[in-house]
């Protein structure tokens, strides 16, 4: 009897599934009617999440709709160059573009992007039943305007975490040597002094043991904006300097003009970061975010601040990483008081990065692109994407069994992101990130090479930022 009931229930479930699945699958076919054979072109940075969208989601979308997706995954600077030129010139080469969290304010100011909320309201037949903005994490709010209308569908969101070599930190011989030298237990750094001490210890350890091991990674490319970003978005906040050191009301950067870019805290942060180069591998001064991840994956650094999108592959992909199963994840070290400020919402401890795909006004295939954006925004595709790119944009993804399984292998990275994510923050809502970055970058680079002292460099950078903001007409 029990078997009969069980069989009947299974049959009923199968029938229900059979009857609902075609309807579910049919939405894409129905919605894409008349658009089969259309090709949509998009551009994004070549990152693990983007490559997953290109290699897995693109072909799956084509199979479901008949719409082809040509996906250009390129370097970060080339991506912006191409996307901005296309949107400015209104050429319509791209039907969807990557919008990083910090550039959305510039794009909205220039009215480059299609209002997705409005577009879906105007085209109800294109509205997927499986696309629901309320299912996203609060990261989606970055891509809304004042009215709450959506301009980008988040495709990645992650935090820049403190990675350390768990195997080394737990090695009894190393622990003993560390305690003998410093009188304290070896553990992930909670503040900058501890971080420096650990960096110094492992650099010496590497030297004395003939290993290619250094104490820390530093994202200090001496001719690439990545170094500026590490300083203003990841290091400054841990010293209590927020919003790039620029006052969000007056748009002043220097202390004299109400900013904090050359404040004592900013100078201390910069000096600490520059001094870390002595404990970093030689490639540090040519390292962008990609090389930092590669350095850590190659087992050349004992600790470092690494973009979370790389955490999964570093910790689990033996084809690319030599430290599989040896990775520990923790919050970045901070100065006293900063954690309290972050907990209260008055500050933050690091960078909550990510991006979305949006549709430029210049697109010639807006309807097809609208379908694509909803396709990648479905809850059903999120879990595997999270495994491939350690990114989470939907609340439910955290509870997915696959993600929870992976979470154990990545030392609780996903749990950390879920629980401690609010301590991190994206870039301030400035419409001039690129312009200020380019104004201050030369001085940051010169400090990396030793041509300028860190405090001199920040004084010059603050003056240059003030001048640039005045020139752009933002300074009040």
């Amino acid at each position, binding site marked *: 009897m029990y078997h009969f009931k069980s069989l009947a229930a299974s049959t009923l479930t199968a029938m229900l599934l059979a009857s609902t699945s075609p309807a579910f699958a049919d939405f894409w076919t129905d919605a894409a009617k008349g658009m089969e054979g259309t090709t949509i072109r998009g551009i994004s940075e070549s990152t693990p999440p983007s490559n997953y969208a290109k290699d897995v989601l693109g072909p799956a979308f084509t199979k479901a709709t008949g719409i082809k997706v040509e996906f250009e995954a390129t370097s970060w*600077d080339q991506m*912006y*160059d191409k996307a*901005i030129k296309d949107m*400015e010139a209104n050429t319509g080469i791209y039907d969807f573009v990557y919008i990083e969290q910090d550039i959305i304010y*510039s794009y909205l*100011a*220039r009215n480059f992007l299609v209002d997705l909320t409005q577009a879906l309201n105007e085209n109800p037949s294109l509205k997927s039943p499986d696309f629901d903005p309320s299912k996203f994490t609060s990261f989606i709010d970055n891509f809304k305007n004042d009215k709450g209308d959506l301009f980008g569908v988040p495709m990645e969101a992650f935090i820049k975490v403190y990675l350390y070599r768990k195997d080394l930190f737990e090695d009894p011989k190393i622990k003993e040597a560390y305690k003998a030298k410093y009188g304290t237990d070896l553990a992930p750094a909670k503040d900058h002094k501890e971080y420096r001490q650990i960096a110094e210890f492992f650099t010496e350890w590497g030297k004395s043991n003939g290993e290619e091991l250094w104490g820390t990674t530093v994202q200090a*490319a*001496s*001719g*690439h*904006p990545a170094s500026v970003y590490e300083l203003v978005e990841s290091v400054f906040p841990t010293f209590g300097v927020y919003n790039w050191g620029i006052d969000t009301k007056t748009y002043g950067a220097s202390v004299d003009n109400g900013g904090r870019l050359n404040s004592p805290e900013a100078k201390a942060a910069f000096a600490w970061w520059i001094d870390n180069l002595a404990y970093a*591998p*030689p*490639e540090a*001064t*040519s390292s962008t975010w990609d090389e930092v991840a590669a*350095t850590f994956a190659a087992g*050349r650094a004992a600790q470092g601040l690494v973009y979370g999108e790389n955490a999964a592959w570093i910790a689990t992909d033996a084809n690319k990483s030599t430290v599989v199963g040896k990775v520990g994840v923790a919050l970045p070290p901070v100065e006293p008081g900063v954690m309290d400020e972050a907990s209260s919402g008055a500050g933050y401890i690091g960078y909550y990065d990510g991006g979305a795909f949006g549709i430029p006004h210049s697109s010639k295939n807006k309807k097809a692109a609208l379908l694509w954006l909803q396709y990648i925004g479905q809850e059903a595709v999120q879990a595997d994407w999270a495994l491939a790119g350690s990114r989470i944009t939907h609340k439910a993804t955290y509870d997915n069994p696959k993600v929870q399984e992976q979470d154990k292998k990545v030392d609780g990275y996903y749990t950390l992101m879920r629980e401690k994510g609010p301590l991190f923050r994206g870039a301030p809502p400035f*419409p*001039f990130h*690129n*312009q200020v*970055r*380019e*104004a201050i970058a*030369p001085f940051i*680079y*010169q400090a*990396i*090479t030793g*041509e300028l002292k860190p405090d001199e460099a920040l004084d010059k950078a603050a003056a240059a930022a003030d001048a640039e903001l005045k*020139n*752009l*007409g*933002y300074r009040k």
Partner: protein
Amino acid sequence: MRSNSVGWLFLAPTLLILFIFGVVPFLYVLVIGFTQWNSFAANPDMQFAGVENFRRLVFDDQFLYSLWLTLKFAFFAVVSEIVLGYFLAQLFMRDFPGKGFFRTIHTLPLVIAPIAVGATWRLLTVPGLGPLPYYLNRWFGYDFNISRYIDQAFFTTVVMDVWHWTPLVTLTLLAALSSLPKEPFEQAQIDGANRFQIFWHITLPLLKPAILATVFIRMMDALRTVDEVWMLTGGGPGAATRYIGLHIWRVVFPKTDYGYGSAMSLITLYLTIVMCWMLYAGLVARRELKRVD
């Protein structure tokens, strides 16, 4: 009269293309150079700014430094290429075993795209991965890191340029050497001139037009170098290799300061023309004056 019209008719397509792709963009840059136009400014519209951009340039330390750096780069690169190219051309004038093979290998860099040259040199020199820093450190204990030491970066870009473009100089001078008349050399030998006297009083004056043309071409190329250096160093470390082309690129694209970038382009073009004219006057006009005397 009729033949003139037919001539203009045949020339028309070329002139039209030149006008569209040469003159129009130049005029466009000229106009933008007198405007304030940054698409991410509080006012993103193009506004007439008079000569303000040009006034700013005079006081812009970064622009002036880039300009100075470019001149220094052009000087070291072009002089090295001419000297090396001359000796290689002389070498190829003689017969030696494997000459054909060596000449082919030597010419290969010329056919490589600049961006690929930059990528190749980057792979060779990148710290922590490239064989050059590795072996220099291992064999000589020399810390070679072009992302950290500004002089190393500067001279690496010079060496890369020399490696890429010396074959062009060699081929040009080889062609010139091959076409020199034999008589003056035979007469000089009969008169008992030594090798240096032959070089100084006969070879060099006869080669002057070819050398001058090569210097012009290479100098103009060196002044506008972008892609190789962008790939190798990105303009760093610091501002060590931020040559004027790269500087303008950064102002125009990442910074989107179109007005100011256009003014920089115009000034750079003007300076290039002036320098070429001065070089021409120095090398050719002086000779003409001597002839008149």
